[in-house]
């Protein structure tokens, strides 16, 4: 299935801003996070088609996954 992955802020470095990527059916958000080697402890907002999701959410063909790093400084 094709998934559009959008990365934000520091997650773009050495990766990409936006890419259409191929994944096997049933791939979860967490598997994509792992595959992209994004640090799990620095995950901020994670959305599929503009809705906030848990990491065990299974992706469907044609969906857009957006991942922001955790920003917490003051």
């Amino acid at each position: 299935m094709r998934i559009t992955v959008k990365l934000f802020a520091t997650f773009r470095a050495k990766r990409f801003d936006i890419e259409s990527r191929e994944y096997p059916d049933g791939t979860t958000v967490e598997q994509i996070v792992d595959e992209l080697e994004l640090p799990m402890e620095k995950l901020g907002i994670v959305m599929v088609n503009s809705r906030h999701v848990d990491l065990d959410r299974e992706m469907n063909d044609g969906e857009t996954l957006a991942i922001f790093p955790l920003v917490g400084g003051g």
Partner: protein
Amino acid sequence: MATLDSFLQEHAAGDLISWQHQLAAAERFALSLAEVEAAILAADLLPARYQRNRGMLSTQQQGQLFRSRVAVIGCGGLGGYVLEELARLGIGQIVAVDADVFEEHNLNRQLLSTPGTLGQAKVEAAVQRLAEINPAVVVKPVKDQFTRANGRDLLGGVDCVVDAVDSVAARLDLEAVCSALRIPLVHGAIAGWYGHVATVYPGEDTLQKLYRHWTGGKGIEQQLGNPSFTPAVVASLETAEVCKVLLGLGVPLRNRQLTLNLLDMEVVEVPL
């Protein structure tokens, strides 16, 4: 003997009272500058220092801001700018909460830090700075950390709270206490080139949604640090939200988060 009201009417230029006459009134009637400012605004006059606000805020609205009480939790990067802007805006009562003293690594960005304030409590520096820029503002310094235990006391009588802390745990506590006390909360966070802002009304639990994947520890600010400009940008957006919340103006950032990327100059709105 003239009353305060007749003194003010006599010395008004149009409907403006100059700082000089505000000072003179305080001395003559043995009142605090805050008491005189309250009387000026109650008489539908305007302290001249706010004359450039009046294209956007009426004298009644300026009076409402003066009668408002805002708590700023954290007086570092975000909090320093927020305090400065709230005082210049004319918020009458400000509670400044922070347990820390200034250290050298604060000097690159924290507005209230100078070589001369190193080692000084951040809330003490806040009191001094606000007394310099707007002596009619009453500032209550609290040299302590915000916790769920002291939160109720700290936020008593407060109309709006500004989240300017530097830990996710403290932010979640702050949201819970504000929600229980039915106080709107303006949230801002920064890391390097990046930041975000959101306004939370009681019961919306926006920060719980925003930090739902948080597992403990810091965000990317741990690696990136923070420069001079990101806190100023995010703090200014927070202050604009406070002004709107207090006066019921415009469209606040409710149930949405504005994310800022100053490196690529990208602003993205995230629904919450």
